[in-house]
């Protein structure tokens, strides 16, 4: 197998928790912090750390607002995030193709 594809996998996305966040956001234009936390069964601290890492990589944007005087935090993928996620999926598919018996 050509190890090229495996080495090209984005390390920021590759981590399990961050990949889960990216996957959820890839299917929805935006998701609230609580929705992601509850679905992924993560702690507040854990998900906050992952969101910050993704935000620093430019893959995710965080919007803080108020809904009926309650704070509402929503996350969405940036254009760079969508591109990085698509690349990651393509590389996984490439790995599967390469190792498929001919």
């Amino acid at each position, binding site marked *: *197998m050509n190890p090229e594809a*495996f080495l090209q996998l984005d390390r920021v996305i590759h981590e399990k928790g961050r*990949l*889960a966040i990216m*996957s*959820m*956001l*890839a*299917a*929805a*234009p*935006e*998701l*609230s*912090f*609580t*929705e*992601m936390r*509850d*679905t*992924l*069964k993560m702690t507040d601290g854990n998900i906050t750390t992952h969101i910050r890492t993704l935000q620093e990589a430019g893959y995710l944007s965080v919007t803080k607002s108020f*809904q*009926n005087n*309650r*704070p*509402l*935090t*929503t996350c969405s993928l940036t254009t760079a995030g969508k591109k990085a996620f698509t690349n990651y*999926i393509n590389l*996984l*598919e490439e*790995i*599967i193709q390469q*190792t*498929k018996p001919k």
Partner: protein
Amino acid sequence: MAMESNWAAEHLQVIRTLMERSALYRRALAPIMTYNGVLGIVGGAVGWAAKIDSSRGFIGYWAGVGLAALAGSFVLVRRQALKESEPFWSPPTRRVAQALLPALFVGSVAGLLALLCPTWDFLQPRALPPFWILLYGCSLTGAGFFMHRGIKLLGWLFIFCGSALMATRCQTAGSLSSLNGHFVMGCVFGGLHLASGIYLYFTEPRRNET
């Protein structure tokens, strides 16, 4: 090499599952179903007891019950969204609303035409209950693609009930009287919603244990 392939395939499967899950509507449905169930049963009982027998009265009365159901459901969904610090008009809510809308729109237009146009003979006013039940079943099966599986089943139950009512009318001469119409609406709309609400109350995962 096979291990790498398995690992990549498993990763893709996890990604697919998470993408599907994030697109699903996740509000607790038990209170909404219970509310609509109680409203339907009470509506049917009041309509029958008050002997609302005219076609116009029947349609107007059930249009009012329908609006109360819609308004109550809206309030319950909004309250849940606020409580969970989540946007009310979220993408899954939008998808569910879009799936529900066409059949509900057709049902409303049919009711409105039967109410306003006495010469409209496309659908007898008293044939409206089975028609409404069928359309509601269709709207639920459509919305069920964005909700948990039980909703599609509930939609099919409505469709079966609507079909059975049409078949009953084929066997017996004449149409449903409005008083029987109240009974049908109360039993089918109220009964099925309430049964579904009770079932969901015991089986629906609570928040934070999703």
